[in-house]
């Protein structure tokens, strides 16, 4: 396991900031330390060379949801807004659960399986 191999960024106190964690992909997996969620329930993961971010959210039941921030309309990268994610290409928007709030996208964001192992969240990309 390579816990701590990534870099946490942007943990500013402002309410508008989004914490970012940069890490690598290994064996189709992204590994994120659980400790990142001590101060909030959403973390943006930037896997090296993926070209799309992943939004990792801690749910109320303690599980984690990983959303690929790739628009389901034309594969454009999504930007993080104050209450979800938006595609600047055609204007599609998604809420924090990955559901479409504004078209033209019709499908929700892709979710990846996650599991917790030894204080680490493992996101399975395959």
């Amino acid at each position, binding site marked *: 396991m390579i816990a701590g191999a990534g870099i946490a960024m942007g943990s500013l106190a402002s309410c508008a900031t989004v914490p970012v964690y940069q890490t690598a992909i290994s064996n189709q997996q992204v590994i994120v330390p659980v400790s990142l969620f001590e101060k909030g329930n959403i973390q943006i993961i930037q896997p090296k060379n993926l070209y799309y971010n992943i939004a990792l959210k801690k749910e109320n039941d303690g599980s984690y949801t990983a959303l690929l921030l790739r628009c389901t309309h034309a*594969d454009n990268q999504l930007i993080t807004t104050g209450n979800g994610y938006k595609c600047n290409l055609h204007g599609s928007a998604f809420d924090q659960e990955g559901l479409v709030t504004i078209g033209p996208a019709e499908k929700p964001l892709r979710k990846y399986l996650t599991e917790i192992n030894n204080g680490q969240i493992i996101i399975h990309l395959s």
Partner: protein
Amino acid sequence: MQKIFTFALLLFSSLSVFAQQPVATTSEDSLSRNLSKTSTTIGGYGNAFYQRNSNLGTSRADLERGVLFFGHKFNNQISFFSELEIEDAKVAGGQNGGEVSFEQAYLKFNLNANQYIVAGLFIPRIGILNENHLPNTFNGNERNYVETFIIPATWRELGVSLYGSLSSVPVNYTLGIMNGLSSAAFTHGTGLIDGRFEGRNASANNLAVTASLQYYAGDFKTQISGYYGGTVGVSKRKADSLGLNSGTFAAPVALGEADIQYAHNGFSAKALGTIVSIKDAQSINHAYASNTPETEYGAYAEVGYDLLYALIHHRHPQQLILFVRDEKLDMNSKIPSNGIYDGTLDQNYVVTGFTYLPIRNVALKADVRIVHTGAQNPNLIINPNPATIPYQQNNNLVNLGMAFSF
């Protein structure tokens, strides 16, 4: 021609069946097999509406726009995007009206998850409508007039632009360079519209730069954007003979814009203001007699409420939005000494109506546009047609229509 049109219609209809279904072909690359496939995407949008003009006592119906998106992802780094548009449904030789054009056609190069570069015919991020112009996402059958005449959306030119987002703060930015406008083509009463090249044989002696900054906070989004570009594309020799400066940024057009949007619990609001400066308007008028103004401005504010929000669970896609928008613009708020003021270009519109979305990507619209303008300047009427009715400063336009995107 009729066969071609019929074929295009059939093609348009059949393509919609395959809408938004990426056609995976080959796969490549290393890290994540499921993310690295090449794919081709197809989408589109369109709108049609009926309009009743109270003053003229006339009505018209028009398929205003039909647009097809084609995109292709070559690999994780390089993609192609395009929008091919037919305006007014039909283009026929020898007849006025209608237009076939690329609204966008560019290559996109991903630098990383937060930055990419586009190169080709692209729409810069100026205003709200320019970048997000799908007709089911705005209220009213017609686009707002401020972002039609002051910001000439959809404003696309050839060039290169960087798009980026900051990692930890919801700030997005763009910085681009593209061909400039042509002051030789400016037409009285249409703002910057006729000066655009839109990718067709653009003069590139003159260039323009554009930039924007967006910030998201909670349910708010704010943006500022700007444009600065030369308008003299002719040779130095010709520019000298016309009495115009020459060079990359000669006879510049400067445009600034700021807007703010808010949406929460079925309520939405937005406001935008923009101003255009053409400081060499006097020289342009001397060269081309186009009555070009020195300053134009426009602003609008709109509020809307989804009447179904409280009645139906808010995640239900149905919406019935009641909205009202107030628009104010003046295409000749300041004119040079050789210009002639035209009061009809000082315009105010109040637009109100309903937008019903049975699903998010389909809108049925009903609205009324209440028009008020300044008085006509008789000095601009050179050969009055005896059959022409006197200019009326007040008018109402009633619009009924549909819009879609996929």
